[in-house]
């Protein structure tokens, strides 16, 4: 019956996807964990759990705490390390017709550069996502994402190290995210992921202890969505890089909000924990919306939100 077939393909600075729906780094493992619930062939893309040069043990428990419509985490970049990723995790993802974005993090610029070089040689990696926004480690991560000069140097160095699409995942824990987005653009990034988690804290009043082992952690979930939407909108108005929008997406309507604010693609994060097949629901839901409204392609509505005054 539906003769109208919208073109759902999107392109984030060379990172091509069959539709705008991704799953966010750290919320989907390396893909195999969700095999029973998600047909990876139907996903636009997968951002894999952050990879570092060496395996990392992560932070002590307690690592998660729930807050209204959200959760705090301090996982601390626990991951299998580059070598195990290449030999044990990546081959699984290669079986599927989906775009693989590898999120990477390091202590130093040199760590990021080495990761970019090694991952660029690997078969089945379609793009790199620089994690400069992890709030849960002392060194490596967020210090790059909050300092324009450090960020510029890092992006430039990674740009020289890879020809793959280079996407920078920015931290919302800054006064003016637009400044940092501009720095990425000036130093050769191909796209931006907005946003990582917001720094937060929760306290158990009975024990009078912080609920997380390190006191503070990253807040995700629907609680942060309005902030994420606002940041996507601000950045999209002033920077020409394509944006992957994320932060509290739980359904098709949430995804559309991000697209109207200026995101070309979206990533589902914490909602995967609650409803493991939510990304499939959003793939179907977006297509139905485009059909219903006779919108020919995704770019027709990216950033088209109307604001009075």
């Amino acid at each position, binding site marked *: 019956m539906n003769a109208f077939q919208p073109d759902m393909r999107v392109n984030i600075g060379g990172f091509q996807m069959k539709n705008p729906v991704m799953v966010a780094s*750290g*919320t*989907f*493992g390396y893909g195999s*964990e*969700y*095999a*029973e*619930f998600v047909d990876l062939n139907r996903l636009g893309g997968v951002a894999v*759990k952050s990879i570092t040069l060496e395996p990392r*043990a*992560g932070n*002590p*428990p*307690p*690592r*998660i*705490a*729930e807050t*209204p*419509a*959200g*959760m705090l*985490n301090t*996982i601390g970049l*626990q991951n299998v390390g580059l070598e195990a990723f290449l030999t044990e995790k990546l081959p699984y993802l290669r079986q599927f017709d989906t775009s693989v974005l590898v999120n990477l993090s390091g202590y130093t610029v040199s760590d990021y550069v080495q990761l970019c070089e090694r991952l660029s040689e690997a078969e089945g990696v379609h793009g790199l996502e620089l994690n400069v926004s992890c709030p849960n480690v002392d060194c490596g991560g967020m210090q790059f994402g909050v300092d324009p000069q450090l960020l510029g140097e890092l992006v430039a160095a990674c740009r020289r190290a890879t020809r793959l699409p280079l996407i920078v995942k920015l931290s919302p824990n800054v006064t003016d995210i637009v400044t940092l987005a501009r720095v990425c653009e000036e130093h050769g990034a191909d796209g931006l992921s907005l946003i990582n988690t917001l720094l937060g804290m929760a306290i158990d009043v009975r024990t009078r202890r912080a609920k997380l*082992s390190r006191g503070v952690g990253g807040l995700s*979930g*629907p609680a942060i969505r309005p902030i994420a939407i606002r940041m996507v909108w601000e950045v999209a108005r002033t920077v020409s890089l394509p944006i992957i929008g994320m932060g509290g997406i*739980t359904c098709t309507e949430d995804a559309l909000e991000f697209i109207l604010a200026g995101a070309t693609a979206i990533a589902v994060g*914490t909602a*995967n*924990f*609650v*409803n*493991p*097949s939510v990304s499939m629901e959003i793939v179907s839901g977006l297509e139905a919306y485009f059909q219903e409204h006779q919108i020919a392609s995704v770019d027709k509505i990216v950033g088209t939100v109307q604001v009075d005054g």
Partner: protein
Amino acid sequence: MNRHDVRSRILEKRFLAPRHVWMRLECDWDPARVQPGQFLHLWLPELRDPLLRRPYTIYRIRPGEVEILFQVVGKGSGLLAEREPGERVHLLGPLGRGFALPEPGTRALIVGGGVGMASLFLLIQRLREQEFEVEVFIGARSRDYLLCRDEAAESGALVWLATEDGSEGFAGLVTELVAQRLERNPPERAVLYGCGPTPMMEALAKVGAAHRLPTYVALENRMGCALGVCLGCVVPIRREGTSRYERVCTEGPVFEAAQVCWGFRI
């Protein structure tokens, strides 16, 4: 893998003791493929606060339905306890690695503290079906909270009771009762299985070590995804001399007690 996310409905609910709730839920999982000690991750659909699902151990399972038995400890379990038959829930599972049955001829000593008995009943049932000698030690703060005593006795297990206030059975901690039992009449070949508050399981680990008995415990923790992805539910585990974080949802919830680095916070 054999995990499903099913739309279910509450069929029946009862309060067994203050804040202790039993529920029967629709569920089409094959009981033969559920290991004792495995759990399900339950969602009250469309809820945003609390946002996450809650893990509940699989207390009993039959074709077409599953039973859970839980204590109200916070917002999530409190909201579930208020739900009535007919209302919808989503069940993700069966999840985790459960208890393995011992070699034939081994005597099984099963130790439950409070609502921890919920993780052990399926094990008792499976062991008795295969005609293992089973002794069940049930501990609680007082007699009203001694769960599953009739079911354990009906299975043919020998049942021991302990209450902290002495209102029934041995007066004291259930782990003290287990230690006494082992000292008086050390069994030839035995294995300890336990579930309860973390200090109780730590005490059981010591009893098991003192008597050189293999000891397995089902841990609990806060969970995000319960699918091994979020890495939120880890505990420190020592294997072959090195300790590392392992996931209660995936490598657990059942661990060998001697390998658990006790003293972690959950």
